[in-house]
């Protein structure tokens, strides 16, 4: 039988996304086998994150500074705000290296069935930013980069409507053929969306 300490560790690990009781045991064992190269450094990294990482009061990003590094970056285009559901969506956009504007992390999508309304999301903050831009005379574009799901679409319509009074442009990411994708392998829904969003080239 594992000691109380190890069991406690396994229990916590088992609550992490993607880990079940078995895989939690395997992770715990792997950590314990490498106390100096894995276990201790991980513990330090966890402590550091717990002590320092905060949610950015402006955009909802995670960083050791508040406002976050993205919001502080003077090189960034203050006239564009990209709205994403979660921080990992922000990371995905940053990986592409092509977006140079600011972000707003909603923290999820509207879902009446899950009891998640506008108050549960970071929507008031987004509206405040739009209002501030209007007051400062900044021409703002809000880019909706939400999941193409039922909830994502409803949330998109909702934000479009709430942002209308501030006179900012609202756009959403294109839907269609992925880069490097073969037509042959696309599902019917994607082909339909791609056809609807076709662009004239001549």
């Amino acid at each position, binding site marked *: 039988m594992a000691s109380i300490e190890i069991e406690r560790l396994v229990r916590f690990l088992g609550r992490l996304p993607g880990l079940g009781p078995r895989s939690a045991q395997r992770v715990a064992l792997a950590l314990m086998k490498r106390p100096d190269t894995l276990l201790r450094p991980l513990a330090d990294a966890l402590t550091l994150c717990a002590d320092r990482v905060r949610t950015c009061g402006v955009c909802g990003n995670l960083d050791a500074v508040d406002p976050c590094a993205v919001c502080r970056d003077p090189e960034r285009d203050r006239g564009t705000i990209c709205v994403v559901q979660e921080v990992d969506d922000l990371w995905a956009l940053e990986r592409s290296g092509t977006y140079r504007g600011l972000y707003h992390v909603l923290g999820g999508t509207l879902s*009446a*069935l899950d009891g998640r309304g*506008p108050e549960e999301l970071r929507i008031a903050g987004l509206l405040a930013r739009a209002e501030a831009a209007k007051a400062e005379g900044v021409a703002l574009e809000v880019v909706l980069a939400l999941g193409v799901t*039922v909830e994502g679409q409803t949330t998109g319509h909702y934000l479009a409507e709430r942002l209308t009074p501030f006179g900012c442009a609202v756009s959403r990411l294109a839907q269609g053929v992925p880069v490097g994708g073969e037509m042959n392998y696309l599902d019917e829904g994607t082909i339909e969306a791609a056809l609807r969003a076709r662009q004239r080239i001549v």
Partner: protein
Amino acid sequence: MAAPAPSAAVPIVAVPPPTAVTGLALKDFRNYGRAHIEAGPGLVVLYGPNGSGKTNLLEALSLLAPGRGLRRAALAEIDRDGGAPWRLEAVVDANGERVEVETGRDPDAERRFVRLFGEPARGQGALARTLGVVWLVPSMDRLFQEGAAARRRFLDRLALAVFPDHATTAGAYEKGLRERAVLLRTGRRDPAWLGALERRMAENAVAVAAARRELVNGLNRLLLDGFGALPRVVLTLEGEVEAMLDAMSALDAEGAIRDRWRWLRDADAVTGGSGLGVHRSDLVVADAVSGELAARCSTGRQKAMLLAVTLAEARLRQARLGDLPILLLDEVAAHLDGERRERLCATLVDLGAQAWLTGTDPELFAALHGRARFLAVEEGRLHEHD
């Protein structure tokens, strides 16, 4: 050296035989512990006493298509008593190619797994592309006596065979309807939230209505020609949203639906549903010649009408997607007299699809002797009979 003279009888392009399930293994499925059948591309007659497992076999075949099968059963319900999670392995000959399909209950995820050639497939969509399945089962005999919900389900299942996206759109609409009911009931009357929801629902509603209209028009074109001795049938779609599409563009219809829903909020808060939408449509089936409604026809005639619709569905799928689906016809002969049965058999032979028929007595299908494969089903066992 002279080239050999080409033989005039050999066709240059071989027409692939219609899609057929040529092998099926059942494991812990209903009353089958382990069973295996092989079949050719033509007609298969399964006969045996009541409760022997004929319909279970058809259900297994129906689960080679996406969805919950012809009984709409919960996954765990299908497990054999005291058996492991159910599992099916099938060989499907589709467009001249051989596809190995596996499906069954995934005990970890409480959903259906699908594998093609042993490789996990993403979702059940891969099944839809491999094989079409249409069925007619005795529980559908009540279709014309039941409420409109059963007929909408029937219609949407037909639509699924031709528009693979229909289920997703219809599901999104239903979910929107539930979300809206929650918002209205809990008094969370955020107008922007409701407006956003209604806007998305209106898009879904118009897409569902448009697909149903196209389906009904396509079926009517095929039904007009008739299927052998089966009655000529005409289908009519009754629904406010469907009717809007006759009078205006899809975009205008979306706007009109949203306006109506905004006004209906108070009333809908009381009922918990909505007074407007594609969840209120109905399908009316009538005899094309006499105009008599199916609901007023005899049981035998209703069955014949449903058969005509089922065959039209098979033909429509062939026209739209290029392959004939397999037909599962459970106890179809029971309500037909001898002459009608013989003509039905001839119509099925003409259609050319692989069709699986069940009946308690092989003599019901006497007209098919020599033209179909006969299998005796007995308490979860199968015997060849010729």
